[in-house]
């Protein structure tokens, strides 16, 4: 996890329309509670970042938001516009069927929707147009991640969920992945991203949700979280909150 000072230079979220709403969300596996009474709302035109130590249920929460897991209690409501593909998804380790080129891969996903997709524009956005004829198995890890991002926005879903888009990438590629999340938010997409790179989160996220001990331990814009905890950066917020054994307070900062 990087510890460096960074400043959020993104314009403030442009819309307050709720796209995804989770209420009293709880997930248990047998006796083990992974998430307990989570309430969160994701808005159009904003980047919401999920952070927290390993094993705090970030991926579980993302899968619940996607509808790929059934909650033990509570519910997830999609409140966005009625479209063919409401939520796009970038898995933590995106992988694609071998023997197909970059362009064929995106065209395949586009063919699953009636909404037309401009594959050239999409691949240009993620800087993959020049390698469109390259087989996916010949892509670097960073390029594969960018292809995953391109796949996640096929059909212009109102919400996209990125599970650790910068994980394992060099700083340039990691920044590129987060720049794309910011561009998507500027176009009105609700972006939910989980990450361990707090510098990138601080720079690009509109709202940060810090998961700790099964619950939301802190929530709000990065700068306000820093002010509330009287610390210099998000890393110190993270350090202060996760150092406690059990969160006694759920710090929420209203935007």
């Amino acid at each position, binding site marked *: 996890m990087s510890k460096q000072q960074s400043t959020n230079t993104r314009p403030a979220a442009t819309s307050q329309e709720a796209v995804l709403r989770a209420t009293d969300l709880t997930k248990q596996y047998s006796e083990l509670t992974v998430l307990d009474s989570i309430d969160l709302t994701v808005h159009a035109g904003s980047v919401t970042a999920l952070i927290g130590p390993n094993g705090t249920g970030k991926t579980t929460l993302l*899968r619940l938001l*996607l*509808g*790929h*897991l*059934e909650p033990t209690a509570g519910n997830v409501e999609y409140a966005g516009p009625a479209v*063919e*593909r409401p*939520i*796009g*998804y970038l*898995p*933590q*380790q*995106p*992988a*694609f*069927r071998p*023997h*197909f080129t970059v362009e064929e891969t995106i065209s*395949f*996903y586009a*063919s*699953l*929707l*009636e909404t037309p997709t401009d594959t050239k524009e999409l691949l240009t956005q993620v800087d993959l147009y020049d390698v469109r004829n390259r087989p996916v198995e010949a892509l670097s890890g960073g390029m594969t991640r960018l292809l995953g991002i391109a*796949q*996640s926005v096929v*059909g212009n*879903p109102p919400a996209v969920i990125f599970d650790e888009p910068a994980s394992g990438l060099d700083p340039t590629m990691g920044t590129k992945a987060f720049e794309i999340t910011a561009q998507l938010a500027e176009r009105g997409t609700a972006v939910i991203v989980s990450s361990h790179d707090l510098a990138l989160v601080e720079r690009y996220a509109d709202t940060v949700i810090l998961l700790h001990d099964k619950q939301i331990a802190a929530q709000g814009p990065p700068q306000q979280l820093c002010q509330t905890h009287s610390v210099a950066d998000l890393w110190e917020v993270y350090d202060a909150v996760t150092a406690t054994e059990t969160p006694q307070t759920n710090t929420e900062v209203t935007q």
Partner: protein
Amino acid sequence: MSTIVSTFFALFKRELKTAMRTRVYYLITVGVIGLLLALTAGGGGAATGYVPTVVDLLLPLEVLVPVLAIAIGYRSVVSDLERGELAVLKTYDVPSSVYVFAIYAGRAVVLSVILGSGLLATLLLVSFSSGPDTSIFATHTGLDSPLLFARFIVLTLVFALALLAIVLLMSVAAQSTLTAIALAVGAVVLVVVGGDAAIILGLTDGWIADADLLNALAIAPNSAYRGAVFETVIAVTAASESGYGSPITSVAGLFAWTIFSLISATLILHRRTV
């Protein structure tokens, strides 16, 4: 075109393209053609006619077909599961049933092409080595003919597609490629060997009555295939011998295995991806 139909064809086409770009399938095809031609030439059936060739090939095919079904099908779903692709496809609202049937259809074409090529090559070899006996103009028994061999090809493909569906079911249930191959081998051995063994045990222990034998044979894929081939291909040329199996029940049995496996695969996949 409705979304479900277009989704089915998108997945089906991708499956075929994957197969066409997989070199090992070409090697398997060449191997199958070579093996069947060698068995045909070596068994001596080719010089005698189509039905003797069927007799020569029946037992080897009861082994070769399960092996091919495993080779073509064991990774069919588990690879997509391992890549996390099914979680992605779910965001495109691809129903589990459409996915399973499209993958199956694609793999079924691949298996049919590989097996069909070998059997058609055999048909050609027999036709060049020995034709039907044209000195007989009419008889109360059937004549050896390429049509009987065509019937054999169709029955072999129906048998192969039933086993492919069972292997695909194992691929859906598996947690990894390694467990997929173990499950596929286990299931096929259970069905192929266990089916015949259960029938023999049922007869000796008396819980299958002699009168029910033909129906019981239709339950296990191998005995259903064997019974149907004997009844509709081999027995046709014999003067009075029949009663090896009930062709309709046998084919229905093979279709039942196919449909049961695909529906089970759909339900398991739905459960795994919700």
